[in-house]
């Protein structure tokens, strides 16, 4: 034979999985939420989403090509995903200039300054969002009214989110049940008919997308379940010990960024722990910090901060929460007879 044989170490086969398949898988899972966002916020959602994606991809390309002098890898889908998630965390009447600033911070500071994909300790989209929230608090907390603002962008009619109504109501002495009569019903909250960021409102679409991620095995159940579970348990304890002063668990889960955060933001591969035990601890941390901020803090919403704070603990979690090694525990059980 005249051809050379390839010699390489085993294994000689591969699953066919790839980085871009995972990234595009998450983007596909976000499509229901995107459609819901377009349904409720119309033209504003379209402008914000397109601008954020385009800006993130462009910044990544420019930084890789001209600053890092590397071959741009924007086709892996990670920059587009960051853009989409950034858009989902912004109100739909935010000026284009601010979106571009947010994208620059997300990609430039949140991701590329650490070395690009895989090296960023914090979730880049949330770095962008929190930067905007702190720098432009007015624009970042005026929320277009769903459906009614479909054909408006900067001039959209705005209203309060259920979370801020709740926060103000409870601090002015109203009871939880009185406030609930002023805000949309649980069904409306689940369907997304409320004020909020572009992609966080439609609970049903987010759960659908989350299930898709689980079925495709892009994520495991550990992070979403521990985030949602700890929020539910913590708020249930508060609520049932004092039903008037504290909102119930269902309210907390269906409002704000909890579902978006639990399924799509906290599960970001790069900034979350590697072992399953670690994921559970991380998820519980996010849940607890979210509730602490919402109930005792000055912000009505705390999911973004909670995730970023727990991101900072990931190296520590990875260091001490090792997976269970094979043979660590010898099972005492006798050989079972069939």
């Amino acid at each position, binding site marked *: 034979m005249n051809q050379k044989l390839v010699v390489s170490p085993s294994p000689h086969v591969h*699953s066919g999985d790839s980085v871009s398949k995972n990234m595009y898988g998450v983007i596909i899972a976000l499509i229901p939420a995107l459609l819901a966002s377009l349904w409720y916020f119309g033209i504003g959602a379209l402008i914000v989403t397109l601008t954020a994606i385009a800006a993130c991809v462009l910044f990544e390309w420019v930084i890789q090509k001209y600053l890092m002098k590397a071959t741009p890898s924007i086709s892996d889908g990670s920059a587009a995903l960051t853009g989409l998630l950034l858009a989902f965390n912004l109100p739909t009447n935010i000026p284009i200039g601010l979106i571009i600033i947010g994208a620059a911070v997300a990609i430039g500071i949140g991701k590329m300054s650490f070395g690009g994909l895989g090296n960023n300790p914090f979730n880049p989209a949330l770095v962008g969002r929190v930067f905007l929230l702190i720098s432009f608090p007015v624009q970042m907390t005026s929320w277009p009214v769903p459906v009614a603002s479909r054909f408006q962008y900067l001039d959209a009619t705005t209203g309060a989110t259920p979370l801020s109504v709740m926060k103000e109501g409870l601090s002015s002495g109203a009871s939880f049940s009185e406030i609930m009569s002023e805000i949309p019903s649980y069904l409306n909250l689940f369907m997304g008919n409320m004020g909020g960021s572009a992609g966080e409102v439609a609970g049903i679409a987010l759960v659908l997308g989350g299930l898709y991620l689980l079925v495709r095995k892009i994520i495991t159940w550990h992070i979403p379940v521990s985030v949602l579970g700890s929020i539910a348990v913590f708020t249930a304890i508060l609520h049932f010990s004092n039903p008037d002063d504290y909102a119930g668990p269902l309210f907390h889960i269906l409002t704000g960024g909890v579902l978006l955060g639990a399924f799509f933001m906290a599960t970001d591969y790069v900034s979350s722990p590697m072992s399953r035990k670690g994921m559970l601890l991380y998820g519980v941390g996010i849940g607890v910090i979210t509730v602490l901020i919402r109930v005792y803090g000055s912000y009505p919403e705390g999911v973004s901060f909670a995730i970023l704070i727990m991101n900072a603990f990931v190296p520590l979690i990875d260091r001490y929460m090792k997976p269970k090694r094979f043979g660590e525990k010898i099972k005492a059980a006798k050989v079972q007879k069939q």
Partner: protein
Amino acid sequence: MLKTFSIGGIHPADRKISADKSIEVLPLPKRVVVPVAQHIGAPAKTEVKKGDLVKAGQVIAKSGGFVSANIHSPVSGKVFKLDEVVDASGYRKPVVIIDVEDDEWEESIDRSETLKTEITISSEEIVKKVGEMGIVGMGGATFPAHVKLAPPPGKKCEVLIINGVECEPFLTSDHRVMLEKGDELIVGIRILMKALKVDRAVIGIENNKPDAIKHLSQLADKEQGIEVQPLKVQYPQGGEKQLIDAVTGRQVPSGKLPIEVGAVVHNVGTTLAVYEAVQKNKPLIERVVTVTGPGVSKPSNFLARIGTPVSQLIEAAGGLPDNTGKVIGGGPMMGKALSNLEVPVTKGSSGILVFPHEEAHRKPMENCIRCGKCVSVCPMGLEPYLLMIETEKELLDRAESDNIMDCIECGSCSFTCPATRPLLDYIRLGKGKVGQIIRNRN
């Protein structure tokens, strides 16, 4: 719910295209190349010289210690040369090259097909016989079989596990042995049970081989203490520790042998060889080898003499396809890529796998995205991504405390990695370095 092992695991496509091909006897080669180190442990000491006439079954190299095995001539003929050649491992190894003349066997060997069920010799004699006949683990590890039959003092074997899992994709040699040599296997199992003084044996077979499960279950029903355990398909269930976990629910502790949890595992190929050694006086001089691959025109299971060049097996399976890119000795998960096709079949060769160019190359590696998939598939509960970094950065003490030496090199991590990172390559390198440090310490 079918049983399986408890940590990690993957599901590669099984592609067992040669599963329905009966075992065919491969014609004798003109010349055989017989390595004298075909097993884990000390190499055997060559006992023949150039020009000697040998018979099939005659000892040509004597066991070099307790953990070692005799090597027998697989053919009759004249010793052409003692030499060193590159074998499947890629290293030069001492070999005996024999020119084949006729097919004359040692008179003591019973070559008839008659099933001999009565076991006439004692436990101690069985262990001795298995050692003399050069039987080693034929699943690929090639650990001398008699060593496993003599548990260290104070340890008691409670269950004998027969490994019929064959979890490597493509390979079907064990599957065919289970289908065609069932009666012999059952006697082989009884011999092993007698040697180990154990009253229970479990044959572990994955559920993708229902015909083998059915056949052996029928045979085992007639026997006292032998049972078949169907297992959920999951790689690497054929790994010794994984199989013990799957069958008994017990986990062998880090750095310990299976006897620690009262188990001894033998592969079905080995069990058949034990039957032939004890009942027929036949040394391990031939074995079943699967020759397969996506482009191979006649995927087959051959009964080939040890020392037959790989090229001859591929010829018999329809020849090397035009677009061949890689030839692997063993399965696609743990097999070794061969650099030339003149390397011989050895006691541990379970298959020859021919891959076309499209499947011969790896994809370039990307950044680790910390998806954690390597951690969740590792059957030993290790963190492959971390072991790779620790090896890269020479953090060998950290690698050791992160249990790098527990790695069984099954390749599940590299198989799964979306960024196609060479995780196992680095872990092997790290194991080598850490192993060196541990040896120097003692």
